[in-house]
């Protein structure tokens, strides 16, 4: 469904991605691991059109989306939850959700369904519906960022380090959400530092190092043989 | 290699100066004065290039420096019983320097847009003061004064003719160009350009960016004031119009059209603009600004390196 072929990306004068290839099938949860600064976030940004690859191709459902404008990428069914959450701090929770919900062609009933589902998965957001996004705690903002992406009813969600800086209780909530999304048939490309969570949630994993894809294999195998993880992540 | 380019530079420079010196001899009176005026505006454009082109600080306040040089010289020429060329120059420069100090202060505290707007406001403050303080400045009607003779104290004194004044202005502008060129090619000039490229990095390397900015503003202001003083001497007339924003705007146009950060570019831009204005306004009177404005805006978008940059590219191809 989503394919990256030999993608090179430059970011602020440095050559960050040196030929990244990966793919995600419909409904799959795929992990992307690697140390800090190897280019995991840049990979997601390249897919989303936030940075333009200098070389290579990105295809989604057969369509070439390399360098496509972000809003068009979003319309095709790719949602993005960035590393620093980046919820709209001066909009209320409800308004944040509406940025994804206010789509042409979305029936009123479906709107209600989506909202109910989100409030069910994240009751906290329901409580704080009219509060400004900036007043939420870090964990709540993460919930909101994911909920907001879900409003787009995407085919794949690009999750960038969702558990960073969160308390263990929140982390398990994230784990549950990922599971729930997977059950709903949404594919996920999960960038994480938390190796355990990633291996548990995903069926396959890629490992990056210095802008290159170094390893790729089933998560079960990586779990069974931790030496590969050690090699590339020093964990 | 360096001395070869140096040779080339000096040869072309001397050729241009010689051409400009000889030119007025063969053309009608109106065009002689026009040529002198082009030189003066060229000097103003060069002064602005220091700020805009080299340091990356867009200023809309050059009309203040120019205007105060103008009125400063006017004051000197009016007040003294026997108007003196050198005193007029000195007073004009001093007046411009005072303004430059103020602007320099703001330069260190404000960045980009805020600096640009502040310089604009500054020149408007002077405009309003000059416009309304009619007792001192003659207000709207301006000041008329006489042209001082060229004097070498104790030795020589002679009135200027159109041609000799032209040579005097040419000499000053040429010397100013050489001075500015020296400065921009010196380590100091390199730091200025580094500030334009990446100010935080320049600061991080250890340069005291504020000090460089202050000097850049002072230099720019002084040479702009010099241009104003020369204008006063040539035209014997000062009016608030010269302190109005339009002058600053035109200077920016010279810079952009000619090519920022090249010193020569803005002079070319000034010449180009003034000639175009003179030519077009014969057909279209005031409306010349419509095609010119459109051309200017297009250049900002598509040819940000200006005419000179564009020509350089062509020549290199």
């Amino acid at each position, binding site marked *: 469904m989503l394919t990256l072929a030999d993608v090179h990306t430059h970011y602020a004068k440095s050559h960050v991605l040196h030929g990244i290839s990966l793919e995600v099938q419909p409904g799959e949860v795929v992990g992307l691991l690697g140390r800090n600064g190897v280019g995991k976030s840049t990979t997601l940004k390249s897919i*989303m*059109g*936030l940075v333009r690859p200098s070389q290579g191709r990105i295809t989604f459902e057969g369509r070439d989306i390399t360098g496509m*404008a*972000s*809003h068009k*990428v*979003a*319309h095709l069914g790719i*949602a*993005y939850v*960035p590393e620093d959450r*980046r919820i*709209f*701090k*001066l*909009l209320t929770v409800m*308004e944040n959700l*509406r*940025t*994804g919900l*206010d789509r042409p062609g979305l029936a009123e009933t479906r709107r209600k369904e989506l909202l109910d589902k989100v409030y069910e998965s994240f009751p906290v957001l329901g409580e704080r519906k009219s509060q400004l996004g900036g007043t939420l705690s870090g964990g709540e903002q993460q919930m909101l960022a994911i909920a*907001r992406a879900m409003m*787009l009813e995407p085919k794949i969600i690009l999750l960038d380090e969702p558990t960073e800086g969160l308390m263990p209780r929140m982390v398990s909530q994230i784990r549950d959400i990922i599971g729930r999304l997977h059950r709903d048939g949404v594919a996920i490309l999960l960038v994480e530092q938390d190796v355990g969570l990633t291996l548990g949630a995903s069926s396959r994993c890629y490992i990056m190092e210095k802008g290159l894809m170094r390893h790729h294999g089933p998560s079960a195998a990586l779990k069974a043989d931790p030496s590969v993880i050690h090699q590339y992540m020093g964990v | 290699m360096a001395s070869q380019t140096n040779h080339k530079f000096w040869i072309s420079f001397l050729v241009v100066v010689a051409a400009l010196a000889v030119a007025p001899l063969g053309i009608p009176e109106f065009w002689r004065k026009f040529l002198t005026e082009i030189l003066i505006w060229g000097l103003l454009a060069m002064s602005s290039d220091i700020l805009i082109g080299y340091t*990356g600080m*867009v200023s809309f306040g050059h009309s203040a420096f120019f205007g105060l040089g103008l009125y400063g010289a006017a004051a000197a020429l009016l007040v003294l019983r026997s108007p003196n060329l050198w005193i007029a120059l000195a007073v004009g420069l001093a007046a411009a320097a005072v303004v430059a100090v103020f602007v320099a202060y*703001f330069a260190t*505290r*404000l960045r*980009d*847009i*805020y600096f*640009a*707007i*502040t310089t*604009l*406001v*500054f020149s*408007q*403050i002077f405009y*309003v*003061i000059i*416009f*309304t303080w009619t007792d001192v400045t003659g207000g709207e009607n301006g000041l008329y004064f006489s042209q001082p003779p060229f004097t070498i104290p104790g030795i020589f004194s002679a009135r200027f003719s159109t041609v000799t004044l032209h040579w005097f202005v040419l000499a000053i502008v040429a010397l100013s160009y050489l001075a500015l060129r020296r400065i921009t090619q010196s380590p100091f000039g390199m730091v200025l350009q580094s500030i334009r490229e990446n100010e935080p990095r320049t600061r991080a390397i250890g340069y005291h960016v504020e000090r460089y900015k202050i000097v850049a503003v002072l230099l720019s202001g002084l040479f702009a004031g010099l241009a104003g003083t020369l204008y006063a001497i040539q035209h014997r007339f000062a009016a608030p119009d010269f302190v109005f924003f339009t002058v600053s*705007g035109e200077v920016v*146009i010279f810079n*952009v059209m000619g090519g920022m950060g090249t010193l020569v570019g803005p002079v070319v831009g000034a010449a180009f603009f003034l000639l175009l204005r003179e030519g077009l306004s014969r057909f279209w009177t*005031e*409306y010349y*600004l*419509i095609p*010119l*404005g*459109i051309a*200017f*805006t297009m250049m*900002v*978008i*598509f040819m*940000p390196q200006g005419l000179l940059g564009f020509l350089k590219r062509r020549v290199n191809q």
Partner: protein
Amino acid sequence: MFEQILVQTVNGLVNGMVLALVASGLTLIFGIMDVVNFAHGDLVMLGGFTGAVTVAQTGNFWLGLLVASLTIAVFGALLQLSTLRPLIGRDPLTTIIATFGISLVLQKYALWQFGPTARNIPQPIPGQFELFYLQYPWYRLGAAVLAGAIIGALYLFLKFGKYGIWIRATTQDRVMASAMGIPVPLVHTAVFAIGAAMAAASGVLFAPLAAVTQNMGFEFTLRAFIVVVVGGMGNLGGSILAALFISLLEAYASLVVSPSQAVIVSFVALILTLLFRPTGLFVPTPK
């Protein structure tokens, strides 16, 4: 003396409201796309002329207001598409120079299109009332109320309208707004059009108070810049308060000095703001 101060207070508030209308368009545009629109005052001027022509032809002030706003809105959108969109990503100083070029063209175009004579619009609300020692035109109050109504409508639109959320989201974080599927380039053009429409409307409101001339734009642009900086760039509420503040200052100052000198007060206010509270006088100090 006290009466004079009260009269000037009313004057200041009236002028302030019209200025607020101009400034809110400018700050909206700046807040969302980092464009300092040097030609904003000229949009006011064009609006004034368009309105004057419409009123002269139809005799209807409200029609003039509507036609001017819509025409200039469309014009603004075209302007943004042709000259400002190519400049996205370049530094803001380039846009200020580009809009300066546009300003020159607009001024001379107005001269060409509308001629050198100043235009006037007769006051739609006739009559005067007694304000202390003066006969004060009703229209002045009417203009202030209208300006306030338009700004109020803008506020409501931004707060509660569907597209209001788009605009606010894009203003806060244009990258994430785009990632959420919001068509940011379209939003930019729309906001510029809205800002242009507001400028045009203020031109029409202003016209019955004084004449519309081809070079009045610069004064408006300059004042609007000052208001936007003093109010905090991108801050809508701040620019309204700042507009009132600046206009009141100028009104009081013109009791002491001549009106053309009173303008220095706003210059000084700008400089002091930049020196001591550069984020804006009416913005809470950032932490």
